[in-house]
């Protein structure tokens, strides 16, 4: 049986269910004849309660601190309070009341006094008295109450909701996760679970009614799914998922805040590709050293009409402000080919990938282009902006685009609108003609970024949407590697840098070669960054230079794959 809820804290656990419920204690007013037996019950209930509270104190001290632990010193004092004890004994001996009733009556009197005080602090102490009373009375009645601190085997705690003190008392050694009926991702129990680093699911509505104590449960805090009494196959599957999660987490902790550096101290940048400011949380979580590609077309595609200058400005500003220390490469509109806008009529073309797309389209639709460039310039004051033009084929196109950018600068100056004078301008290298003439382009831009998907399809003259020619998608083919090498060398000769945006940069076979070819920046999906950083930490730049030299002298795609795999196995 599967239970769905809100994934509140990452991780996977498999353990027995422990239901944390508030069981009703039925205290009757029955009179007794054997006062001594009642006094015995009272005495032993008080002793057991004191011991339990002592244990809770220790666990709280371990889980939290002395300050929180001291709360339970006060609880122990309440249990052993002579004033309470005297009054309770009086009620039992003189009035023949049963121990539970007497204890409840006396403590409730005190709780009521506290509650009526003109002092918030004292009013809250009424809850302490009732909490302690509940514990003692449960022992008098011999009804066990749930107590998370007394758990002594691995469990998943199931509850309606968990209060801050409940979660504080959870023993991390045994409590492998929790799942509740109520709550959301920002509710207290969710936040607490994340700080205790145990998986949690909240807001299931009815988990407490569905499961029984000692049911086996798989708690998948990544997906927000719990499986009750799973099959062996499910357990195996989730154990594997758990291992993967742990491995990833270890990687995460080790490399998140580290530089991307090889064994021989060669440093590169591992940046992220994004489609909208919403992606930034994940980018920051994965330790990206910049944005290597912000695809602005999603801003256009998720809209019913052209986004205004202000709308665009806000989106760009958000991303720049999230990356105060690193560069942010924002690519101007790249539509056409396989990407269309429902509100922009485009000619039907025989070969859309070879047609009127990206920068070509912008250069013939200057008002559209200017709106975006003005928004970018205005956003430039909020960070380290790099503007990148896609699908450049000739120097003339680049010069035209830069001229329009200059016009926008003039307009903004005239309108007294601020922009930074230190923003950078670069181009995507995705057309072989540009790769071959890279030395000339390098004189007129601040950086290159290689777009691999298009560079491959144009190099091999193979439509990447056509399944029948998909075998020609050959990212490791030496001819492509030679093109990349030309681009990188031309940029370095001119004193500028080359990055790569596109999944090839995060590919575990391509990345070592690219490193060896001298690529400066690798931009990929955020989820690939940490494993690439780990890969680089284990290899040396010098070895990879040698590897890259060997690779470009080979003949086929497969030969390069074999070479890399063999080399890395030996490392």
């Amino acid at each position, binding site marked *: 049986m599967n239970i769905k809820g809100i994934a509140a804290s990452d991780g996977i656990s498999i353990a027995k269910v422990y239901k944390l419920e508030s069981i009703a204690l039925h205290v009757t007013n029955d009179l007794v004849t054997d006062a001594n037996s009642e006094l015995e019950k009272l005495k032993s209930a008080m002793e057991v309660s004191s011991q339990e509270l002592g244990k809770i104190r220790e666990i709280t001290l371990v889980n939290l601190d002395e300050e929180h632990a*001291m709360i339970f*010193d*006060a609880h122990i*004092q*309440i249990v052993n*309070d*002579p*004033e*309470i004890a005297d009054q309770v004994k009086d009620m039992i001996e003189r009035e023949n009341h049963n121990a539970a009733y007497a204890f409840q009556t006396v403590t409730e009197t*005190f709780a009521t*006094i*506290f509650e009526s*005080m*003109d*002092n918030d*602090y*004292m009013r809250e*102490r009424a809850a*302490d*008295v009732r909490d302690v009373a509940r514990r003692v009375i449960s022992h008098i009645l011999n009804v066990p109450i749930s107590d998370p601190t007394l758990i002594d085997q691995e469990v998943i705690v199931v509850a309606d909701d968990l209060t801050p003190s409940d979660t504080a008392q959870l023993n991390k050694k045994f409590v492998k996760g929790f799942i509740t009926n109520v709550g959301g991702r920002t509710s207290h129990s969710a936040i607490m679970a994340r700080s205790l680093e145990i998986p949690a699911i909240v807001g299931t509505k009815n988990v407490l009614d569905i499961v029984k104590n000692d049911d086996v449960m798989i708690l998948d805090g990544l997906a927000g799914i719990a499986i009750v009494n799973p099959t062996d196959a499910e357990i195996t599957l989730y154990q594997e998922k758990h291992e993967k999660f742990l491995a990833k987490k270890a990687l995460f902790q080790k490399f998140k805040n580290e530089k991307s550096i090889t064994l021989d101290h060669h440093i590169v940048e591992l940046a992220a590709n994004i489609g909208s400011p919403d992606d930034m949380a994940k980018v920051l979580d994965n330790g990206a050293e910049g944005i290597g590609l912000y695809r602005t077309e999603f801003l256009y595609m998720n809209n019913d009409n052209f986004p205004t200058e202000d709308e665009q400005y806000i989106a760009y500003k958000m991303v720049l402000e999230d990356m105060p220390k690193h560069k942010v490469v924002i690519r101007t509109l790249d539509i056409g080919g396989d990407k269309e806008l429902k509100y922009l009529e485009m000619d039907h073309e025989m070969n859309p990938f070879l047609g009127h797309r990206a920068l070509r389209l912008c250069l013939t639709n200057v008002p559209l282009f200017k709106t975006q460039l003005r928004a970018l310039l205005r956003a430039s004051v909020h960070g380290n902006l790099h503007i990148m033009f896609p699908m450049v084929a000739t120097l003339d196109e680049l010069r035209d685009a830069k001229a329009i950018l200059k016009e926008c600068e003039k307009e903004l100056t005239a309108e007294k609108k601020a922009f930074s004078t230190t923003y950078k301008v670069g181009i995507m290298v995705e057309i072989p003609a540009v790769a071959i003439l890279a030395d000339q382009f390098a004189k007129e831009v601040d950086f290159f970024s290689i777009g691999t998907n298009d560079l491959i399809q144009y190099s091999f003259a193979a439509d990447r949407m056509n399944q029948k020619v998909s075998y020609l998608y050959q990212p490791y083919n030496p001819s492509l590697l030679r093109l990349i090498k030309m681009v990188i060398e031309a940029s370095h000769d001119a004193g500028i840098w080359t990055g790569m945006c596109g999944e090839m940069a995060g590919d575990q076979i391509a990345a070592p070669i690219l490193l060896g070819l001298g690529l400066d920046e690798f931009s990929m999906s955020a989820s690939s960054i940490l494993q690439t950083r780990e890969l680089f930490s284990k290899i040396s730049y010098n070895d990879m230079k040698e590897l890259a030299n060997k690779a470009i002298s080979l003949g086929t795609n497969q030969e390069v794959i074999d070479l890399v795999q063999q080399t890395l196995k030996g490392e």
Partner: protein
Amino acid sequence: MLEKSYKVVDEAGLHARPASLLVQTAGKFTDTIDIVYKGKRLTLKSIMAVMSLGIPQHGEFTIEVTGDHEEEAHAAMKKILVDHSII
């Protein structure tokens, strides 16, 4: 019997933390130790008693010790009150 009077300056009054320490310390003496507030006399060896008095800021109370360690007990109580900025 030796008695000493105090006036509470702490905003929270004679609150649970110092009250709890007073009771703990009082329990270590064989002497009879009472606290008197607004005419009510209760044992200082009961946390419930002390807390039920609910002595607020500006409240004036008296501690009375009867036994063999009157000076010593008073000194211990006063130290707690001073350490916790109650008086």
